[in-house]
């Protein structure tokens, strides 16, 4: 009787893709070790019974060395060995390295089925494996699959039932490697071939000169393309829709409105020169959808398109190697570049993925740096939308301030925080070119996630704020904070509302600034403050989860302190 099926394997062998194939549950998969930091669960029908399938974070052996690996190993021990099946997923292009975990699993007496994944890629690279022989040697079922296309998955499901435990004596790792050497000799045959273009590019990207040139080019191109796609969507799709279709409908609708009272204020907002202005009306039906769909969503689409592409190709670990030197000075190591990049999309996944970092100190530094110095896509989109019209100078100014803050903060934190920064040890995956449909699937998944998370907060948020504004309930808060805001940061008292809203969502907060008619300098200060001050509610929650209460308080004190200092300094430098 099988109660649970565990998917286990080395990092970056495609466990999550196999998981999606088995259960139909979509989880994010990328081409770098450590994509899965949270354990995903789904169901598979076996003998007309639903069996839970668990996707574990990747691990090199059963002796865990990081938090994600620990989680994987401890879960395996939850049920007795008779009640579970362990599906050991192996990257066929690198059988040798994968077999260590396999031998350990077999030795421990787990009922194992081996899934030789990426078999098509192995063929392309001239790696040939005798599956029958391997099965004979290991005495457990071995199935070759290509989870991306679904090849072999059916067979895998059928043979899960055949999983047997065939315990063998315990060995040390050193002995296991000798054994693996013997196995490899019998089952693997490497076709000798010349370096392909792909391999030459793989090499070039981790060499100092060519690597930095490539990194520069790729980052520049990524930034340009993100803007190009984002702006393209805005000027060709969303803006025409809002102005030519949505606005006339709304105006018809509002012209039939007998009296422009509470509900009108709530839904439509203020009329600007007798017309609806999506950027200034601040109604639940006007500005709220415009901010989310007309200003933020286009950039969410373009950002995640580029990020997903870089992830799947396998470029990010190479960037980690190149940046290791710099990040070391901030008390981090190269791999921290991945949480930071994810944070540029949304701070929540960024903070979650700091779990791949080993020490508490590193995680604290990374989480704090992300919450302070990394603006999420919605905020960035609004910064472009609002500050862009004053010139690129202001936009790059915000980035420059944030970037310097990250560096300074990292240096200070790494000096004063006790604890250690562990060694940098990272496997670099080969470049892979997954089919386009995988990219679309991932993009769709992320955009759906964004809409589900953002829309309710935005609509309810704008609704709530409008009610507060209508009944002038904000006046109290404004009265307290206005002198501080004005004296320290040189901002008008209306900005209090916007900065408070920043706690809810950064994009709505920027939206609240639109009707205020701020000068470019004031807007610049506001945007910077929104980026560095409190994280939004969602990141706040994950921050609490990752850092614990004490860490959270520490992190927040740093944020508040820095916001005040930076706000005041900027005020005295540029407004005076």
């Amino acid at each position, binding site marked *: 009787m099988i109660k649970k099926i565990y998917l286990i394997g080395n990092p970056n062998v495609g466990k999550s893709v196999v998981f999606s194939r088995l259960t139909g549950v979509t989880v994010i998969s990328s081409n770098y070790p450590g994509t899965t930091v949270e354990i995903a669960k789904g169901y598979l029908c076996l003998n007309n019974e639903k069996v839970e399938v668990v996707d574990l974070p990747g691990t*090199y*052996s059963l*002796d865990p060395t990081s938090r994600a690996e620990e989680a994987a190993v401890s879960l395996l021990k939850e049920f007795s060995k008779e009640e579970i099946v362990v599906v050991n997923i192996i990257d066929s292009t690198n059988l040798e390295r994968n077999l260590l975990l396999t031998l350990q699993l077999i030795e421990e007496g787990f009922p194992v089925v081996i899934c030789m994944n990426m078999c098509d890629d192995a063929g392309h690279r001239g790696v040939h494996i005798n599956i029958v022989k391997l099965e004979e040697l290991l005495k457990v079922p071995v199935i070759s699959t290509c989870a991306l296309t679904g090849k072999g998955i059916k067979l895998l499901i059928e043979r899960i039932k055949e999983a047997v435990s065939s315990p063998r004596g315990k060995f040390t*790792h*050193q002995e296991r*490697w000798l054994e693996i050497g013997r196995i490899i000799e019998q089952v693997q045959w490497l076709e000798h071939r010349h370096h392909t273009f792909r391999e030459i590019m793989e*090499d070039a990207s981790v060499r*100092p000169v060519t690597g930095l040139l490539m990194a520069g080019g790729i980052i520049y191109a990524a930034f340009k393309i993100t803007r190009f796609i984002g702006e393209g969507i805005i000027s060709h799709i969303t803006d025409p829709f809002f102005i030519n279709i949505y606005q006339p409908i709304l105006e018809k609708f509002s012209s039939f409105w007998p009296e422009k009272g509470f509900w009108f204020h709530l839904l439509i907002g203020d009329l600007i020169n007798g017309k609806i202005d999506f950027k200034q009306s601040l109604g639940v039906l006007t500005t709220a959808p415009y901010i989310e769909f007309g200003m933020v969503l286009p950039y969410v689409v373009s950002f995640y398109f580029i990020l997903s592409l870089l992830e799947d190709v396998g470029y990010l670990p190479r960037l980690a190697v*190149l940046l290791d030197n710099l990040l070391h000075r901030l008390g981090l190591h190269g791999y921290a570049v991945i949480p930071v990049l994810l944070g540029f999309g949304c701070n929540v996944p960024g903070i979650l993925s700091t779990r791949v970092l080993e020490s508490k100190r590193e995680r604290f530094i990374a989480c704090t740096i992300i919450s302070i110095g990394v603006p999420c896509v919605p905020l960035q989109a609004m910064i472009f939308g609002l500050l862009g019209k004053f010139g690129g100078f202001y936009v790059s100014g915000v980035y420059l301030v944030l970037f310097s803050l990250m560096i300074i903060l990292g240096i200070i934190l790494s000096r004063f925080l006790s604890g250690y920064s562990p060694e940098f*040890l990272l496997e670099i995956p080969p470049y892979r070119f997954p089919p386009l449909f995988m990219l679309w699937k991932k993009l769709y998944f992320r955009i759906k996630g964004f809409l589900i998370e953002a829309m309710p907060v935005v609509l309810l948020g704008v609704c709530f704020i409008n009610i507060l504004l209508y009944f002038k309930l904000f006046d109290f808060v404004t009265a307290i904070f206005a002198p501080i805001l004005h004296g320290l940061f040189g901002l008008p008292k209306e900005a209090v509302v916007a900065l408070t809203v920043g706690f809810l969502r950064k994009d709505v907060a920027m939206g609240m600034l639109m009707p205020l008619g701020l000068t470019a300098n004031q807007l610049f200060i506001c945007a910077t403050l929104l980026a560095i001050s409190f994280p939004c509610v969602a990141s706040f929650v994950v921050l609490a989860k990752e850092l614990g209460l004490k860490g959270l308080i520490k992190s927040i004190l740093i944020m508040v302190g820095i916001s005040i200092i930076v706000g005041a300094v900027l005020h005295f430098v540029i407004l005076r």
Partner: protein
Amino acid sequence: MKKISLAQIKPDEKVKILEILGGSNLESKLLSMGVYKGKLVAKLSHIGLKGPVVIKAGRSILALGHSVAEKIIVERE
């Protein structure tokens, strides 16, 4: 035969690992990734003076922090 660390050899050199210093934790971690005594590895590159070292061990490409590379003692073939 001269003992030398992975950080000191030149890129594109092929070497045999003699010893891994720095405690059993690092050793077992490297071991589980396929870097162990007696293994033949090739150094691919070295990023900057104190930067990470990239090696090829078997079919895997690994990046090791500079301090890790210094602890891996090798001999030239």
